[in-house]
């Protein structure tokens, strides 16, 4: 309303104002759409970081729980955040050797537990026992002959855990839920 009052005198100004006024609904619409898309992405991000996430697990280290050729896994983030992850859980871990990589392993011991492990399962029966320090966890692969885990790099800080795997989704013949498995 105010704009019209100002532009009344000059013809050119009025024309510009007119086009502006015509454009206003489109600009509004565009802004609304952008906001909607932003909200959607934010919602996705929050669900993915705080509630649950998908992960693609592959490789020989978690045989027979996870396939050699790749499985789509479903992992939840709540129990890692609350500190409820204990021995037997399959977890997603940010690799201590390469922070860009996320690996799947099984927790064998929480803080204060003593863990006995085979130093070199391929060649000898030599066993070692360690006590997991405060705030750390001991992780191992299910396939102990072909895995890089705490036997190589020692206990890892709990903060590196990214989620607890509770379900294998794909391929359909492998569909199962994964729970605690203490050997």
């Amino acid at each position, binding site marked *: 309303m105010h704009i019209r009052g100002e532009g009344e005198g000059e013809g050119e100004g009025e024309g510009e104002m007119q086009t502006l006024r015509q454009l206003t609904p489109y600009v509004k619409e565009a802004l609304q759409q952008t906001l909607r898309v*932003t*909200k959607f*992405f*934010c*919602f996705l*991000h*929050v669900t993915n*970081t*705080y509630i649950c996430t998908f992960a693609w697990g592959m490789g020989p280290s978690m045989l027979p729980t996870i396939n050699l050729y790749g499985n789509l896994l479903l992992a939840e983030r709540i129990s890692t955040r609350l*500190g409820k992850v204990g021995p037997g859980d399959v977890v997603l871990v*940010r*690799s*201590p*050797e*390469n*922070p*860009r990589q996320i690996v799947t392993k099984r927790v064998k011991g929480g803080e204060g537990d003593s863990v006995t492990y085979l130093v070199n399962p391929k060649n000898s029966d030599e066993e070692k026992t360690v006590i997991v*320090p*405060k*705030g*750390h966890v001991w992780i191992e692969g299910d396939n102990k002959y072909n895995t890089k885990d705490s036997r190589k*790099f020692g206990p*890892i*800080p*709990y*903060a*590196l*855990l990214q989620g607890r795997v509770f379900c294998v989704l794909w391929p359909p013949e492998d569909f199962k839920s994964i729970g605690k498995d203490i050997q």
Partner: protein
Amino acid sequence: MATPNFLFGLAKKCFTVGLINLTVSDRYVSLIAIRGSSMSPTFNPHEKKSAAFFMDDYALVEKFCLEKYKFSSGDVVVFRSPSNHKQKNVKRITALPGDWVNISSSHDVVMIPEGHCWVEGDNPACSMDSRSFGPIPLGLVCGRVTHVLWPPHRVGKVDRKVTAERFSF
């Protein structure tokens, strides 16, 4: 009655703002309060222990560095404490994978393993850092401190500082 509708709208708005806020602080930038004197004189240079929250320094943390985990020595980073996953610490990276570190207390020289870094506070007198818990995995890092935002008279960039004598042995 328009009140329930109004309340519903308000709740929805709060929810949206919360979502956007959380996303931005997770992925792009966030704000943290820095407590304690382990990083003095970079942060909290005053000597007295202050209880009031407005006496702490507030700093801007950028998260873009988490895409590639590329850091250089001298960066001030926020990382989760290796002994307590709920606690975050602010320290300066002094050595990266492949570097050699001279531990002054025991005269040992340690090589930083792959994917780890060595963090130290600027105030060696009272700082819990790699000198007590060893090198930490880079995966614990959750942001790089770039600017001081509060108090007003010290607003500015946080410098990258390299202490050269660490590497000589």
